[in-house]
């Protein structure tokens, strides 16, 4: 535990500034979402969510997340394992590639798929001849989401795994454990909380992604419209209550993610502390 440092006079100012920023940037917008959503009462709130198009948007969003989050969790663990535990040529290139989706605009992450698989893209004509459609389909949405959410799990795990080093794995191997046993009984348990956190963040982004998905979606209602895109459509049609009601689902998802994470941290606080102190 660090010793407490008293900053007389400055501390209240800092607290006030932090509260002000949080209020203006986070609490106020979040509040607006729910206030606007319930402008016409509970019945008015539920009505837009009963629309078949809204339902199909929810289903599609869940489907895309259900495919891309596990894939990126597996990729993230594999990449972090390779980067943290081994020395190889091109490691810094791999690290930079993992960070790339963070540094480019999501629109680019969507556009590249159009350029690759769109009707006028590199592989578009061949794919069309084979009867495979990527753009304006769920496949395209999954690809765009995968690219955008690629760094979340890996970035969460790399610093932790680097800090943990590979002594425990080495010990397991000298004790007679094979590769799989070592991974599932030593490596994975050591990273499970960071992995869970990474997956939660990845999931939140996968469900909330707008830019990349917008490019490949085509906004076909009932078919390729995800929740964030559905919000935009409703808003553009001046259906504000509908837009905010749908948005409240996404905001609620964010809140649930946060609550689950905090709950887990509280529940396993002792164990977490033990792992860090070690």
């Amino acid at each position, binding site marked *: 535990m660090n010793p407490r440092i008293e900053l007389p006079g400055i501390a209240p100012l800092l607290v006030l500034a932090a509260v002000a920023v949080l209020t203006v940037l986070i609490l106020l917008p979040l509040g607006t979402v729910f206030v606007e959503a319930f402008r016409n009462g509970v019945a008015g709130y539920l009505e837009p969510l009963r629309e078949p198009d809204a339902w199909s948007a929810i289903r599609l969003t869940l489907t895309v997340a259900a495919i891309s989050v596990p894939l990126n969790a597996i990729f993230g663990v594999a990449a972090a394992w390779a980067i943290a535990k081994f020395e190889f040529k091109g490691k810094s290139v791999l690290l930079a590639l993992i960070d790339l989706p963070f540094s480019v605009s999501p629109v680019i992450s969507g556009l590249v798929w159009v350029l690759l698989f769109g009707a006028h893209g590199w592989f578009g004509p061949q794919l069309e001849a084979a009867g495979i459609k990527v753009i304006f389909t769920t496949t395209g949405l999954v690809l765009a989401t995968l690219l955008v959410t690629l760094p979340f799990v890996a970035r969460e795990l790399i610093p932790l795994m680097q800090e943990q*080093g590979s*002594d*425990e794995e*080495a*010990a*397991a*191997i*000298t*004790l*007679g*454990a*094979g590769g799989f*046993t070592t991974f599932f*009984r*030593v490596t994975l*348990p*050591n990273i499970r909380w960071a992995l869970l956190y990474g997956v939660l963040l990845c999931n939140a982004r996968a469900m909330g992604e707008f830019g990349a998905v917008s490019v490949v979606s085509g906004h076909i209602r009932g078919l390729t419209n995800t929740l964030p895109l559905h919000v935009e459509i409703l808003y553009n049609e001046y259906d504000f209550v509908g837009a905010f009601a749908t948005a409240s689902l996404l905001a609620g998802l964010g809140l649930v993610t946060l609550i689950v994470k905090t709950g887990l941290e509280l529940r396993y606080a002792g*164990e977490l*502390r*033990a*792992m860090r*102190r*070690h």
Partner: protein
Amino acid sequence: MSLSIKSVAKAFGRYPALRDVSLEARQGEFLALLGPSGSGKTTLLRILAGLEQADGGEVSFQGENFLSLPARERRVGMVFQHYALFRHMTVARNVAFGLSVRPRSQRPPKAEIDKRVADLLRLVQLDGLADRYPAQLSGGQRQRVALARALAIEPRMLLLDEPFGALDAKVRRELRHWLRRIHDETGVTTVFVTHDQEEALDLADRVAILSEGELVQVGPPQEVYERPRSAFIFDFLGASCRLPGEVDGGKLRVEGWEAPAPEGAPQGRVDVFFRPHEVSLLPPNESGVSATVRNIFAAGPVTRVECAVGDERLEIHGSAQSLPEGLAAGQPVKLKLVRPSLYPAA
């Protein structure tokens, strides 16, 4: 010979970590690999464990080619400097790990594993802590768990990589003697890596000294300590004093003092090395190397006398009784070297 290492070499990129190292150990021997950091001692240990691949050379253990055997099949117990305990497992499950990951056909029944764990925890004096997590233990306790875990697989050889390096001095000394007892009880061939010469000399049957990836001397502690083969080894093995000298025919000359040169001494300009306690301070009318007392530090069991010989400064150790009476700073004295070691001048 139980363990035989022949011409082992290893490089990391262009940096050679081990060069042509050959070494043997008897069944049940306690061998210390001693060297400064970067000398390659840990690399050699990790090659023995199978955690690093040698670039060349041979390692055989009990007649078996060790290098072609994967780490998990070597059945060596390894103890790491930073314990490397499985942090999410209790002490008991840490110790049981090696047995519980065996293929089903070779795995002892659960009751037997439990008994083995209890026995081992008693051996390392940690019974009662079986349900703790590593983070709830002190450093010394953690290292004892690590040793119990390594012993659980009934290792054919025990490898320890600076096992006490992260512990404080008092705990180190306690664990050192305790480790030697465990070794004598179990009789397992043990290779112990350390950069602490006192630890190596105190603990091992034989000490192998490495420097810059090369094996520079091997022998029993007393032999290595009394007859270091080079100035580097002499200096590395403990506190040392150095004076410039010259050997001419059968004569050794140090700062105007002349004595018969020891047998086999190098000719010409030499560095004269001796331990701070292997020198007598005599009154100035006696024969010896002329020196002037600069400072006397009398607190503690050893009195340290700082002397100037020409341009050199030396620190001599002695007991209060062995020093001339009334010794004070500024006085001229003579130094009588009890057993100097001579090396060609650097």
